[in-house]
């Protein structure tokens, strides 16, 4: 097993163009603003059921997504808004899904845990802890099979399979790791280790919780520990792993150290940790850190930073207005999308509005036709 030490962000930061770093900062700000507004919307009863926000972990989704190509598959569990946005899903579709409206990425019938974007190779958004891991294994298997067996070429994609540290205790995680190892699949299992599975500290629920890369060792898998609170560390740690995984088709496991600033869900009293602990981590805000790097080392002005903040605020406000204007799914939708055919009570299937709209936009762009924004 190779242990990869966290890469030094300072040495390699200069190699990443300022424009790219600014885009990452904007993506992280967008996720933060989106999640803050989600919390408010939840309090205002615009969002029902459960809502798991990503605040504090933004650098992980943004840095990991940047380290792979846009057509590399991504799959995750229920804390999925950040990954969807980092992958490029438009915030209005994401918000409409949370609001339970027909305009949402899953026609407003999936909610917080079920973000999907087929166009952007984002495979969800799943509610059972750890159960998405074998699906990730299957996605990696599929890309390799399509590249090698169907196309007759070389395996050229990497699948990112995200999970929380709670997944480490689930059987399906271990089955997926073993399968990926035995079948030589190009997949990176990224454990977003925020220290808690709901309210259970990792030391109380997971053997070897202080060194979870030992799980990978059991499967003969390369592993790395990466500082998930720093976007540059995430990118610089992930990029070589992703490149090597793509080239060698060998799976990798990453202990991505991070912290969720808020509760597990909106109704979490957080009795399992102290205010002091939360404050300590909040002082290490990944957004502040990247902003400081841009301002101090890359010449971004305070005004430019404020402009970015204003920009994402506008975007999320518009997303909320759009979501609010979208109607709830009609009752007939109860029996759609269960089977492809129409039989018995079932009424067949059709893609969500998001796909149709984006398809139309792409067509319009191709033809150069005018379109409404």
């Amino acid at each position, binding site marked *: 097993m190779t242990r990869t030490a966290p890469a030094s962000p300072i040495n390699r930061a200069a190699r990443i163009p300022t424009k790219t770093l600014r885009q990452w900062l904007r993506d992280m700000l967008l996720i933060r603003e989106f999640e803050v507004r989600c919390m408010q919307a939840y309090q205002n009863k615009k969002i029902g059921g459960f809502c798991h926000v990503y605040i504090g972990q933004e650098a992980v989704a943004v840095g990991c997504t940047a380290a792979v190509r846009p057509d590399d*598959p991504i*799959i995750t569990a229920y804390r999925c808004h950040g990954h969807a946005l980092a992958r490029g899903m438009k915030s209005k579709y994401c918000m409409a899904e949370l609001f339970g409206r027909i305009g949402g*990425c*899953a*026609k407003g*019938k*999936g909610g917080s845990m*079920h973000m*999907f*974007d*087929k166009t952007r190779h984002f*495979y*969800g*958004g*799943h*509610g*059972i802890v750890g*159960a998405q*891991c*074998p*699906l*990730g*294994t*299957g*996605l*990696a*298997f*599929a*890309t390799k*099979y*399509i590249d*090698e*067996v*169907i196309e007759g070429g070389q395996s050229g994609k990497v699948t990112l399979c995200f999970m929380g540290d709670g997944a480490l205790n689930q*059987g*399906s995680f271990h*089955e*997926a790791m*073993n*399968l990926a190892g*035995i*079948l030589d699949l190009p997949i990176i299992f990224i454990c977003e280790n925020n220290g808690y599975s709901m309210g259970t500290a990792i030391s109380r629920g997971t053997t070897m919780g202080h060194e979870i890369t030992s799980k990978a060792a059991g499967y003969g898998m390369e592993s790395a520990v990466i500082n998930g609170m720093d976007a540059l560390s995430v990118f610089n740690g992930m990029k070589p792993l992703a490149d090597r995984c793509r080239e060698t088709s060998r799976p990798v496991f990453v202990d991505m150290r991070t912290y969720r600033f808020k509760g597990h869900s909106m109704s979490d009293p957080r009795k399992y940790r102290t205010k002091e602990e939360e404050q300590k981590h909040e002082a290490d805000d990944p957004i502040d850190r990247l902003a400081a790097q841009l301002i101090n080392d890359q010449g971004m002005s305070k005004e430019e930073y404020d402009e970015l903040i204003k920009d994402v605020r506008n975007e999320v406000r518009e997303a909320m207005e759009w979501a609010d204007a979208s109607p709830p799914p009609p009752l007939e939708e109860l029996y*759609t*999308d*269960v*089977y*492809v055919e129409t*039989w*018995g009570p079932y009424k067949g*299937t*059709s*893609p*969500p509005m998001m*796909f149709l709209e984006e398809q139309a936009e792409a067509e319009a762009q191709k033809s150069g036709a005018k379109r409404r924004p």
Partner: protein
Amino acid sequence: MANLTLVQAINLALIQEMEADDRVILLGEDIGKNGGVFRVTEGLWQRFGPERVVDTPLAESGIIGTAIGLAMAGLRPVPEIQFEGFLGPAYDQICTHAARMRTRTRGAFSVPMTIRVPVGGGIHAPELHSDSPEAIYAHTPGLKVVMPSSPYDAKGLLISAIRDPDPVIFFEPKRIYRAFREEVPEDEYTIPIGQARVVTEGDDITMISWGAPVIQCMQAIEKASASGGAGKSIELIDLRTIKPLDIATIITSVKKTGRVIVVHEAPKTAGFGAEIATEIMEHCFLYLEAPPQRVTGFDTIMPYYKLELDYLPEEPRISEAIEQLAAF
């Protein structure tokens, strides 16, 4: 035409679908080098290579989860689970992912996967190797459940299942894997999922079954016919597909006969026979001459082989039900 067993018919269907479509890929425990626990995939590993006939570790949840990922990415996986009892560890993946993916993603992603599973008793195996859990999966929206009772049906239904855009659980009754042979066309053909087969026509009693007990039903019908008793002209319906249920064929028959027997191996309580009986009462209440009868397994765990034939719905119990129903 070739005279094939059910095992050979399935093997042939797999070969033809794999030759016609590179997206069809098999995975499961010992299905490759060893040809499968019941030798259903014999020779496929040599023919298509280990890339398409994939020997997996013994990990049902992992196998089905991986197959779901393959299907979401556009392939047509056909995973094998060695025995129906081993579906237990894969239940999570089947019911929380495969069945719901189309609904969860509102049509963006589908799971065109066919899970092949040997099912049922009659081979002297213990519980977990002789169960009949079809009702559990029929109860889960999003799944289709198929169970053939003959080599001809097995081939045509399996080809339909593999080509189906939604997940199908394809139960293969192990008792009749090699029990008899039947003429099976070498050309590919399909039997539509959701269409029952009227095996024998009759005017007095409708008998409904699926899978291996169809054979016991036919034995009972022959006996009734040989005895020449009045009121024992029996129409046997082989469901072939448990879900979607071909209720139209059942209604037509029951409206004609007014008497019904449902025969299945699974335990009686909340078995699929209960669903059929209720459907019949909803649609044919005023046509019924007698309460619907059920000849089923008992509400207990499948016993080991010395009691196996007492548990299964064998011909004498079916014949007894015919007598009772005819006399009602």
